[in-house]
């Protein structure tokens, strides 16, 4: 594997010398996400999928270290074998999914609100800079405040600060027990319930609300110790879903394979807890009401203004022809954009990596 890494370093250094830019690629399953790649031929691919393999895994330390090109499926299978898992339930889009792509996009699944953001679980990274040198930030320990937390900055960076070469993650034990309840609730009632449960000591690990003919349905998953799960179920009520059905349902959300996700364009809207219905009539809610998937045609500026007023942000997750040129991510406040651009310039001075993937200004 060392020769694969030095090959990547050489490719990066050579691209810089030749004035080419590089588009970093893991398995290519997340390329749809973010701003479109430049269509001219000034960019070459940097294929990270060849740099793969789990480097270290000690279940009792709750830490796993793997190379960026390691298939996500392999990582999760190894964890599963030891009764552990990735806390943020990342989506799987295909066999090509890599750990590096997963961290660079920071997409999380149904467990996100209970688990926290993907960046909560990164302990260390290795990052390649434009001359091919590999830098190491953080490490393989749970508590580490030496230097700035560059590792967390890289989570969700869309590769604009350079290729992740290796990551160390905090992993968690699988819950001992898990059940799903279904409640017939309209949108406003569902949102109110989800908000109320935040301040209750209940192990809610996922929620999903979908409209149906009679108003709507809220599915609630509880995960944890048997006794806590049962106490929570008694408080929430509703109808118990069969385990196979429940698993299939949550997987269809995690992997965005549910029919709802076929709509184009598809917006991904993030809102503070307790935010009211957006009133579009065609929404799927996850994350205790904080993630709203929105189908149908919306004027990007108007939607974003409305969402901002509620304290959230909207990304254009899947485009269609009409919105092909719209930026994917919610625009940043000018002062924040200024600092972000300077960070990009400081850490990738030649603008070598993933031009425009995060913002056209990058």
């Amino acid at each position, binding site marked *: 594997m060392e020769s694969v890494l030095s090959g990547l370093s050489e490719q990066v250094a050579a691209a810089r010398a030749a004035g080419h830019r590089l588009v970093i690629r893991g398995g290519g399953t997340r390329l749809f996400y973010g701003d479109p790649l430049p269509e001219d031929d000034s960019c070459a691919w940097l294929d990270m999928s060849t740099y793969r393999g789990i480097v270290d895994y000690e279940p009792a330390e709750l830490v796993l270290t793997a190379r960026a090109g390691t298939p996500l499926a392999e990582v999760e299978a190894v964890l599963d074998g030891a009764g552990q898992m990735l806390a943020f339930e990342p989506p799987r889009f295909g066999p090509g999914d890599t750990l590096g792509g997963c961290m660079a996009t920071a997409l999380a699944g149904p467990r996100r609100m209970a688990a926290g953001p993907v960046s909560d679980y990164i302990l260390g990274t290795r990052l390649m800079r434009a001359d091919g040198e*590999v830098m190491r930030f953080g490490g393989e320990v749970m508590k580490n405040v030496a230097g700035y937390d560059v590792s967390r900055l890289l989570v969700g*960076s869309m590769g604009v600060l350079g290729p992740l070469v290796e990551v160390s993650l905090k992993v968690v034990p699988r819950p001992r027990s898990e059940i799903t309840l279904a409640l017939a609730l309209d949108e406003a009632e569902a949102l109110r319930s989800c*908000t109320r449960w935040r301040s209750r000591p209940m192990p809610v690990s996922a929620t999903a609300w979908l409209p149906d003919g009679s108003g709507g349905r809220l599915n609630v998953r509880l995960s944890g110790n048997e006794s806590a799960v049962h106490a929570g179920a008694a408080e929430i009520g509703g109808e118990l879903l069969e385990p196979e059905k429940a698993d299939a349902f949550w997987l269809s959300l995690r992997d965005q394979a549910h029919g709802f996700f076929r709509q184009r364009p598809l917006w991904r809207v*993030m809102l503070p807890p307790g935010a009211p219905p957006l009133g579009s009539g065609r929404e799927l809610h996850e994350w205790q009401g904080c993630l709203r998937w929105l189908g149908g045609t919306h004027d990007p500026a108007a939607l974003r203004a409305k969402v901002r007023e509620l304290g959230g942000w909207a990304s254009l997750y899947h485009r269609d022809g009409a919105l092909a040129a719209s930026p994917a991510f919610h625009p940043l406040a000018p002062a924040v954009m200024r600092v972000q651009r300077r960070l990009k310039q400081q850490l990738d001075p030649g603008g070598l990596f993933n031009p425009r993937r995060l913002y056209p200004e990058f």
Partner: protein
Amino acid sequence: MTPATANAVATFPAPDLAGFLASIRGALPAECILACEDQTRAYECDGLPLFRELPPVVVLPEDEPQLIAVLNACRAHHVPIVPRGAGTSLSGGATPHPQGVVIGMAKFNRILGLDPERAIAIVQPGVRNLAISEAAAPHGLYYAPDPSSQIACSIGGNVAENAGGVHCLKYGLTVHNVLGLRIVTIEGEVLELGGEAPDAPGLNLLPFFVGSEGMLGMVTAVTVKLLPRPELARVIMASFASVEQAGEAVTRVIAAGVIPAGLELMDQRAVRLVEPFVHAGYDLDAAAILLCESDGTAEEVAGETSRVAAIMAAAGAIRVQVSASEEERLRFWAGRKNAFAAAGRISPDYYCMDGTIPRRHLARVLGAIADMEKTHGLACSNVFHAGDGNLHPLILFDANEPDEVERARAFGAAVLELCVEVGGTITGEHGVGIEKVDQMCFQFSRAELDAFAAAKRAFDPYGLLNPLKVIPTLARCAEYGRMHVHRGELSFPNIPRF
């Protein structure tokens, strides 16, 4: 001035303190500007009095516009800034700059909002950590990170240091419990990082800012997540005849899928240090004792404590006791929580270190520290956040004895280097500050240190925010390298490094 600060000061344009004072006089009430020695003396050090520096000026802004006026004046007159919360830093993060201003944030002391239903609070940075939990308590909520200094330290300081506490194994560090920050940059601009909605767009500045030790901006508001207070908590106290066995018990608890609310280890010297003061009932003959807390509903706690007690017994515990009442639980904890205070009572001075190691190296590291006691001629007791590998050796010394300060520092430096050698880090929660700048040369390559400096420039192009801290200069690492084995010759060649 210590020799270390002397050479770095020279690289900044000369500050114009008179001009600075003249330009802020109109912007802040007179009582918020302290410039005579009897007023500024109180700010000469933080929780690490090994480093002292009398600040020429201290300002105590009352609100954001005043703070912005101060920052603008600092920029105009090249005046270096040291932000200060409650001054409890154990790494000299708030040690003043000899030619700069200390900006004390104590007057930013209001809770701006607390929403019990949504379990979110917005507080100013000068609010004390414990005050947040106290305000949330009537609603059955609390703020989880609980550094031992929680009655004194400020949430702004917690953000700057990414502070932890005995419950962070289960509930996370500051970074895991902060949802949003409002900061003012050196350019006088207000930035909102993160927010109440999840996953803010753009580069992930929120967790990057947490732990940045006052070097990237001034925090003016913090949005924190509150948690429902668990119904019940119980602590198991287990004694072991060897540190290895205690370490093995920790490994088995976690391997069994239990994440306890707290999991702490004290070695024999620490136990003997605290027991006479707290009468916790610790086993004075044990080589190590473990405290393991379970919290949740009554059923959860009952289930978890019986599983953990069985694991401890199987791992060779010589005594296992579960707290039978809240009073007893607090008594079991009292020794751990007062370890520093007890050290202060038996020794004129103590120096608290803060390395993290992969837990599997615990016994080895404690063995090596015992050897170092002989080499440096000083005693050391160890308390350990065993669940997450964060080690706090307490080196006991007497600053009035010739060369004991130097020996304590050398001992401390050796412990930190050992942590790095076994794959850990020089600081788990106290920060690098001014104290561990040299050891940064040991843990990081030049490329990595350059990346830190580059990131700092993105926020602070003028290099005015808490200069001299965290990031060593090239010259300083060269000096350090001459005196120490470089990491190319580390004793753990199997840990890949570039």
